[in-house]
């Protein structure tokens, strides 16, 4: 999951970025409204964490711009206690949630997870496909009741695929959202990583959950019954 953070105060920015990375996100960070807007409109992100008070173009203006372009990505506003009017305006403009400073970064991670969960139509922070269960909050993976040990990267990859079971992702999408690659690497990193993940998740099971879509990329097997 790739998150864009726009925050001008270096201390808060570093702590938000660190917290999100610990929570399994990959993060791009910008310190001004202009840069943030440019990044949001030219790169693809799964969510946006946006400070309201920014030098130059402020957060509300960025938000308005994005929504006017028809971009629907989830947005969490960071606001100061006194900025009640701005908060209301932000929510009216299409922000999905807000946090008042000071806040715990765990809360931000939890709220982001909640937003992404709603996006993918899940009810809890526990993702399920067949007998594969991923607890996003506690970073636990179980298949058929047995715990599976995954590296941080493998976990992020699995969660990315599990947010939308049945949806196929191209290799470049995966590499962008899981590795946050900005430049060409000329490697088959995605294939190698998926192969390893497959070994751990599908290895001994009859039912293979990670599927290769020919000519496209990879996906997680669609759920049997769709709600």
């Amino acid at each position, binding site marked *: 999951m790739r998150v864009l953070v726009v925050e001008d105060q270096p201390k808060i920015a570093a702590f938000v970025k660190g917290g999100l990375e610990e929570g399994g996100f990959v993060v791009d960070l910008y310190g001004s409204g202009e840069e943030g807007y440019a990044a949001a409109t030219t790169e693809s992100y799964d969510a946006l964490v946006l400070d309201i008070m920014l030098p130059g173009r402020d957060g509300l203006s960025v938000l308005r711009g994005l929504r006017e372009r028809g971009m629907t990505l989830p947005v969490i506003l960071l606001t100061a206690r006194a900025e009640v009017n701005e908060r209301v305006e932000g929510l009216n403009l299409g922000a999905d949630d807000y946090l008042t400073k000071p806040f715990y970064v765990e809360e931000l991670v939890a709220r982001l997870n909640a937003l992404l969960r709603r996006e993918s139509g899940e009810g809890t922070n526990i993702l399920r496909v067949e007998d594969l269960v991923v607890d996003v909050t506690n970073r636990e993976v179980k298949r058929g009741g047995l715990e599976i040990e995954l590296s941080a*990267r493998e976990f992020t990859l699995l969660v990315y695929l599990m947010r939308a079971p049945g949806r196929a992702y191209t290799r470049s999408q995966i590499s962008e959202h899981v590795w946050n690659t900005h430049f060409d690497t000329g490697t088959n990193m995605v294939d190698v990583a998926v192969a390893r993940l497959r070994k751990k998740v599908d290895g001994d099971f009859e039912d293979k959950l990670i599927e290769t879509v020919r000519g496209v990329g990879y996906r997680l097997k669609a759920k049997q019954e769709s709600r």
Partner: protein
Amino acid sequence: MRSFRLRLALISAGISVLVLAVFGMVASEFLYRERLARLDADLMRFGYKTATRAGANVEGDRTERSMVEMYGVEVAGERFFALLDRHGREIHRSARWLEAIEGNDYPAGETELDPQPVVPGPPARGMRRAVEPRFYTVTAGGERYRLGAFGNREVTMVLGSNLDRYAKDVALIRRAFLIALPGAVLLIALGAVFVARRALRPIEVLSERMEVISAEGLDQRLEMGNADVEFRKIIKAYNAMMARLEKSFNQANRFSADASHELKTPLAVMQGTLERALGKSEDGSEAQRVYSELLDELAHQRRVLSSLLLLSRADAGKVALSKERIDLSERLETWLEDGAMLAEERKIRVESELEEGIDVEADSVMLQQVVHNLLSNAVKYNEEGGRIICRLSGSGEVAELSVANTGQAIKEEDRERVFERFYRSGDGAADGAGLGLSLAREIVRAHGGELYVGDSIDGAAVCLVLRLPTVL
């Protein structure tokens, strides 16, 4: 190296020596001539008296007495004379006579008729008419003598004096000058060095400032301060040049920023549209395959664009970094996982020695791209079943990361070329656009670090070294 200061000192010392030498020679020559003229005049005083008075019956002894009378005892002791009759036969020779001048050959010596003393006016009535006096300089026994011949039609007197002794102060001055000259030259040379240094000092200060300025950025200018008028011109010209540079740089920079935004935005829109279309397309359909192919191609375009944008920003010295303090040792553990994953595919062993607790101030997203690039290169250009050695160490203010592999060594002459843009190694193995290492180097430089090809470690011939300033 040619030193302007040294040249300046040598030239000014040389000129000074020349001037001093010429001045010394001319001065002593004038002094000598003046002495000669005075001696001639002095000889003339007595010679003229004899020439206007003496007849054929001249008496030598009386003449000697009258000489003492005229010159005084002391000076007369220095003088000598001979009296000759009209046929040139010697009538008298004074008690002191120069042995070296024999017989009648006194006029045969080296003559020096110039300068001639002024002959006093015509003799008073009743006196004899004097013949034009003649003067000679002769050398005898290693010393020079001045002889004057005076006389009338009947008697000639040859009167002489030691010239060297008479003009000994001139010789003394010459000698003193020769002795003093080297000392003076040395002093002048030292003075010239000092002056040259003083003269060049403002230029040195200027060039130091210019160095600082070119490191700091194009918006810097030299201060006029209280610079001398000669340097104001240089400062003005330099500042004008910087202003022009800045202007064109900013234009180019704005162009590439605008261009990249203009290019990236439609790509992003296309990507969004394609992603939605891909999500809705039927499984296994032709549309699904086409959409995803387009998506991958689009992603590639966007990355190349990002690379070019970063390179153009680097050229303008304006790479945008969001730096934070990170534990490099810890990050590397994670990043190495990716590398190890790639390595495993080709049965390459990754050996890592990471010193713990090395903190750097860095943009972790950018730095990750660099490390990823180094590791994927180490896999790509390695031999199947080879090794990758990854070492992190910190010494004082510098963190050093070496990533070495057992592939084909980089030729000495290619050590810099691998960082060139669009460089492709000879064997045709190429990644993307061939921008990887040049990008990596620009990112590292923007962090105030360096990236270069190092020497092999532990049998791993290809080694790239990344150095970054640490924070305590």
